[in-house]
């Protein structure tokens, strides 16, 4: 199940497919796919109608934003950083859209363009403060979380004003009418397109230097990678995708004061559920997306079981910890210790030790996030 059993792969492309396959069946990622299947089956058993295309479409439509956020968060995490600001950003973007569009169809796309510009700006700020000023991204994005949340309310005097236009809302609400599915949601299409895009990106040179930066920033730098730039791009990707998520969420349900609250933790949890290692350099984007779907599916299951809604978080917490713990066990070896990962000292024979690599993990110089003061 470990990489050592990998079949021969002559060409780079094929082999990355190979290693993806490995990641699927080995280590962290296996758990999430198994879990996802189990949960979906459970739901279907309890409520066969869930398997009917329209229900599935509805499920995927409402899952799409989180999946997209997870992809964005994945880029940042794999580069060795955190993005806590996405929740606030989603909220801010929806409110901005409502206030600026104010129900005027004609303004829709102008405003959407503006939202992307704003998203880009936020990503740049997060990235540059983290890489150039060396503020740990946990703190940087905690700061932007506060700033965004406050600034946008300040701007709208506390509660969102204005209204979204139909052409804005269609993206999260409408879809292409089809016979069987009844409707193929635009949200789903966007999610799939972005998902494929992410997979391709991770196979492209950028994907590899992103991984390298998260794995060992110094080595990457000595190979000509502009680590600061790569990580900044990751932050920009994250906040751009958060903007897309905002468009879908706002479109799906309209504006309320609470949009986006807590999404940052949900997104990070989803990514980790996908077996992606906090601290960077390890993890598969498809698994991260599966993590997001799993997270949503679990919530579905709970409503399905009609569990008292107050009790749900408890179960959710248990499942998350159990899943991650299980992944950590089946994981091939202890990952190079990430910034917020823990010393799991006492077992020399443990995964820390790997063949021909006596000192691996022995010297505490495992690549951490290059940007922690």
């Amino acid at each position: 199940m470990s990489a050592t059993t990998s079949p021969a792969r002559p060409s780079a492309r094929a082999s990355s497919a190979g290693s993806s396959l490995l990641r699927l069946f080995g280590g962290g990622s296996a758990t999430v796919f198994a879990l996802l299947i189990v949960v979906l089956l459970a739901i279907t058993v309890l409520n066969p109608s869930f398997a009917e295309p329209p229900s599935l479409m509805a499920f995927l439509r409402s899952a799409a934003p989180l999946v997209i956020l997870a992809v964005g968060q994945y880029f940042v995490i794999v580069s060795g950083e955190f993005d806590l600001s996405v929740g606030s950003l989603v909220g801010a973007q929806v409110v901005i859209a409502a206030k600026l569009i104010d129900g005027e169809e004609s303004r829709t796309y102008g405003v959407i363009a503006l939202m992307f510009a704003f998203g880009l700006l936020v990503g740049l700020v997060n990235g540059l403060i983290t890489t150039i000023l060396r503020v740990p991204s946990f703190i940087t994005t905690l700061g932007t979380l506060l700033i965004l949340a406050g600034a946008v309310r300040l701007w709208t005097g506390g509660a969102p004003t204005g209204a979204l236009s139909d052409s804005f809302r269609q993206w999260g609400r409408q879809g292409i009418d089809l016979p069987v599915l009844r409707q193929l949601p635009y949200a789903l299409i966007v999610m799939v397109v972005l998902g494929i895009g992410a997979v391709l990106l991770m196979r492209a040179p950028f994907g590899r230097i992103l991984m390298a930066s998260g794995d060992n920033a110094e080595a990457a730098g000595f190979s000509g990678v502009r680590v600061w730039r790569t990580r900044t791009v990751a932050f920009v990707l994250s906040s751009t995708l958060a903007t897309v998520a905002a468009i879908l969420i706002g479109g799906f349900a309209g504006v309320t004061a609470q949009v986006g609250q807590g999404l940052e933790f949900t997104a990070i949890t989803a990514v980790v559920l996908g077996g992606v290692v906090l601290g960077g350099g390890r993890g598969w984007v498809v698994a991260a997306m599966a993590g997001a779907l799993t997270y949503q599916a679990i919530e579905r299951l709970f409503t399905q079981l009609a569990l008292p809604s107050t009790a749900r978080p408890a179960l959710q917490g248990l499942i998350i910890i159990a899943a991650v713990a299980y992944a950590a066990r089946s994981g091939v070896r202890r990952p190079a210790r990430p910034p917020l990962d823990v010393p799991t000292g006492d077992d020399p024979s443990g995964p820390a030790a790997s063949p021909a690599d006596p000192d691996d993990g022995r010297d505490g110089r495992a690549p951490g996030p290059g940007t922690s003061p």
Partner: protein
Amino acid sequence: ACSTDQPEGGGTSAGEEAVGGESPAEGEFFVRADYERQLAQRDIEPTGDAAEPWLQAIEPEMVDTSQYAMEGPATVCFSNASVSNPWRVTGFITMQQQVEVFQESGEIGEFRVSDAADDDNKQISDIQAFVRSGDCDAIIISPSTTATLTPAVEAACESGAPVIVFDRGVNTDCPVTFIHPIGGYAYGADGAEFLVENLEPGDTVLALRILPGVDVLENRWAAAQEIFADSELEVLGDEFTGGDAAQIKDLVTQYLQRGDVDGIWMDAGDGAVAAVEAFEDAGADYPVMVGEDELSFLRKWQETDMTAIAPVYSNFQWRTPIHAAVRILNGEEVPAEWVLPQEPITEDDLDEFLEANEGLPSLHYAKFGGEDLPGFPDAWVDRD
């Protein structure tokens, strides 16, 4: 020099029956006496001019306040729980507008506000700071949580300055007056009764709630449960939504996938429109709908003319504390418990209210009662 900011007699919260809240010690949010009182109060004709509901009162017992009488512009201090939802934002604007009127007329000088951003501990500190400063001729408090703010409010009472509490209550009757609409039980009942009347026996109802543990909200649900209990309606479930439209719509969609939903009951209108949309997008018939007097919902209601009701938690109550303060500082008597009228909006008066609130933002509350204030409508439109 060991001093204390602790109220004499200290904690009164345990099991003690008092204005506003019921005993949190039991963690129970249903007190039949209060429930029945509130339901009855709905049919009692309030005193005063119906054109100024914020000055009306139901069965007031006046208390003498001559001891607080003073001359000249007063410094009024307001400790606000938060402006973290549209209902409170709307109300707070109304309050500020009301203050300006009295500042014009020279009755109020300085108006000091501290906002606790929903942090109970912070609000306690805010109140203590007001008390210590000794500058406050009157202290208005909108408590964040009934039980937790009680000690601080008691301490404020002991400071000698008149204390006015509104919206959510406290477990003590030390404030000069406690201002509130009829209350959560009535609010919850209005919606529940409407559903019972307008649905057939055996029909299904989904209850959507914001969050657990806030008494005003819990009372609403407690009343609804009471009424659903002796009806033939089937309650499919009660879900917490955090008032987040996306969650609301997603949840309703899920319930619709599993079968019909004939009625929706909500403990607060935030996001009612999202619930309605779920029916539209699923191609299902509109449910019998319980919302709130929030404009986005009222407008949706008018568009679709579905069967609906908008229970009201009278937002105009935010004007009353200011009037109360001025009266008290003039030594005029005020009701010890100032119960304001609280009438739901029905299809009969729907159009009238939408007209009156023409051009106001969608997250604005119809019964905000500020039409006659100088800042109207800009202050509520631009929110500043």
